[in-house]
């Protein structure tokens, strides 16, 4: 289409239309070459336009990007993804019951959080979005701590100060979240630069949604990463939607978010985000590159946001209700489970048992947290409102505490 007039892009399908993913080219698993991790950037440019996939339709792993993981690792990944899903389902329902003010699911995108969490080291640091709770589940973060945070109750590790799910978990390599999108992407690069400056081989992993790549923060982070060769992995989770806006509102006429790497002289990898093995593999490749002092890699996780944006959202208002079911790259949990089954390391019975066990674990954690209290029924001591603003409260805060009848140390 051309001609004069203001062009405003539209997605292929709106409510009432048939879902339309005909524009998505799904390359066969194993068909994309896997160059060495220390290859020159200009030899890697085509990868930004390809789609790296390992798991084939017959549930087998194919090609040079196959990470050849131990079945135990695969099972750990499956468990963490299933736990993420069980937790999401339960907490979403608790929101409906008014026990918290807010919740967000990551249904369909679990592999993008879980595989990196398992693939990277404990002393690396993720700079998360609100949609990668799987990182914490993969590392065994205590479930009741998460629920306490979500309930803003007396045991909330963030002391009632933060919106539900905006976790911070330093010891689990999970940087402080905030409601603003994008503004931590550059922190990942600064953290990585600090690690390099300190002579350590730790790396930072930055997450950003495809919609958020439009923010200036994204560009500035990539620029700094390129200039200082920061040991960072910068990941765009392209789940096709940013609340109600389709990815074309962020990307215009471009087809690949990974291709943005080219302008910075960085490798850009485009990967099937619903393929646990492929996600693991590109993270591992980029981590080896970064630890070798060769700088940052931009990765696009090509996936689909199967749930609504948040508890405040109703996606049937702007996209066909059945769109998720038509997503050509399937479901990450089913695909990994299918692969484990195909290689004889898993079966339906084990999965059912595991699911029941995980549901019970979540229920138990919720029960513990509910005993402490749900939103409004329990909260941290009121003085927490005034603490942590500065290292030491100044006279304004102490006076204001006094006005509320609080002492600084009580």
């Amino acid at each position, binding site marked *: 289409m051309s001609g004069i007039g*203001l062009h405003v892009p539209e997605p292929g399908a709106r409510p009432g239309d048939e879902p339309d993913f005909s524009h998505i080219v799904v390359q066969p698993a194993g068909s994309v070459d896997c160059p060495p991790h220390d290859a020159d950037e200009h030899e890697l440019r085509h990868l930004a336009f390809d789609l790296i996939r390992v798991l084939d339709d017959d549930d087998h792993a194919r090609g040079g990007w196959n990470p050849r993981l131990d079945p135990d690792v695969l099972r750990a990944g499956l468990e963490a993804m299933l736990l993420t899903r069980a937790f999401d389902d339960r907490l979403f329902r608790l929101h409906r019951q008014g026990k918290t003010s807010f919740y967000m699911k990551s249904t369909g995108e679990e592999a993008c959080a879980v595989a990196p969490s398992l693939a990277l080291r404990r002393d690396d640091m993720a700079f998360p979005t609100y949609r990668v709770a799987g990182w914490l589940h993969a590392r065994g973060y205590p479930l009741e701590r998460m629920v306490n945070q979500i309930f803003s109750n007396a045991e909330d590790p963030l002391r009632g100060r933060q919106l539900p799910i905006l976790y911070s978990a330093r010891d689990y390599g999970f940087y402080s979240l905030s*409601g*603003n999108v994008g503004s931590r992407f550059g922190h990942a690069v600064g953290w990585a630069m600090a690690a390099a400056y300190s002579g350590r081989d730790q790396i930072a992993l930055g997450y950003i949604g495809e919609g958020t790549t439009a923010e200036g923060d994204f560009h500035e982070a990539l620029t700094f990463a390129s200039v200082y060769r920061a040991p960072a992995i910068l990941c765009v989770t392209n789940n096709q939607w940013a609340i109600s806006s389709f990815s074309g*509102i962020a990307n215009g006429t471009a087809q690949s978010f990974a291709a943005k790497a080219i302008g910075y002289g960085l490798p850009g990898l485009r990967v099937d985000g619903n393929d646990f093995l492929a996600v693991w593999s590109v993270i591992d490749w980029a981590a080896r590159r970064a630890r070798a002092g060769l700088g940052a890699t931009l990765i696009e996780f090509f996936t689909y946001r199967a749930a609504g944006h948040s508890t405040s959202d109703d996606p049937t208002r702007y996209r066909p209700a059945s769109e998720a079911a038509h997503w050509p790259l399937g479901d990450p949990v089913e695909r990994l489970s299918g692969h484990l089954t195909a290689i004889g390391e898993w079966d339906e019975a084990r999965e059912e048992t595991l699911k029941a066990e995980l549901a019970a674990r979540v229920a138990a954690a919720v029960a513990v947290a509910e005993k402490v209290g749900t939103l409004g029924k329990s*909260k941290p001591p009121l003085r927490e*409102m005034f603490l942590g603003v500065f290292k030491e409260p100044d006279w*304004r*805060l102490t006076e204001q505490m006094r006005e509320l009848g609080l002492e600084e140390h009580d």
Partner: protein
Amino acid sequence: MIQALNDAMDVMMARDPRVLVFGEDVGFFGGVFRVTDGLQARHGRHRCFDTPIAEGGIVATAIGMAAYGLRPVPEIQFADYILPAYDQLVSEAARLRYRSGGEFEAAITVRSPYGGGIFGGQTHSQSPEAIFAHITGLKTVIPSNPHDAKGLLIAAVEDDDPVIFLEPKRLYNGPFDGHGDGPLKTWAGHTRAEVPSGYYTVPLGKADVVRPGGDLTILAYGTMVHVALAAVKASGCDGEVIDLRSIVPLDIDSISASVERTGRCLIVHEASRFSGFGAELAALVQERCFYSLERPVMRVCGWDTPYPHAFEWDYFPSPQRVGTAITRLLARD
């Protein structure tokens, strides 16, 4: 109030082809608060559309359009997210006419849901009006009811200066007296909920004495107008409540006249106190009405902390806190 704001844009889009509405999720979806609902369907995709998530880019685009001669009405999804556009608003929109010797101007109206009271936590609740009030060249409008919201928004769109239009999101669906645990009220039956259809304006820079009184003057805007009214009622005093409606331009004459009469002045806002807009109001009142003042000008504001999720109802100025201040101001020595 949502419908009133929607109406205002609808009216202006119908009257003036130069009016465009855009922002994150405002097009097909109609905005996360549904304030732009139906505008795309009625006026076309090229007049009401989604934008990339880039607040600086949204405002920059709007300024460029205004330089061409259009009258863009961009939305920033939450006022908390206006900060990435702060440089565009301050360095560009506010200065364009001045620095270009009048060759270009930025007649844009930046709408944004604002303020707390909806358990939105730190980044869906803030009240950043003070950082705009300080910027010469910007106007800042904050309505407190549907009638004003529509008339002020139309006036803002027609204004040739850049206007920051902050919509107290706690008032979107009804008036709110500050009792966090009270029943939800809708606008139905409220005197200022009757919104004339079609075109009308409420001029920028004219305050509204929403409750005349002789005991003391309460200056407020947005949600706090309702909290102040509730507090006056509860206190049983004869307090005068002035709804500023716009903080730039500021209706200094109404303020001075009232305080000169009452001799007592209380300022209420949600934003944290230190260097908030209440400071300017206090400074002005004592500069202009010093010899009429019986008591120091008082402020009841958000505490000097970030907006805290669990402590929302401790942070948000309550009728009780306002009431305590009223009592202090009215106390005989």
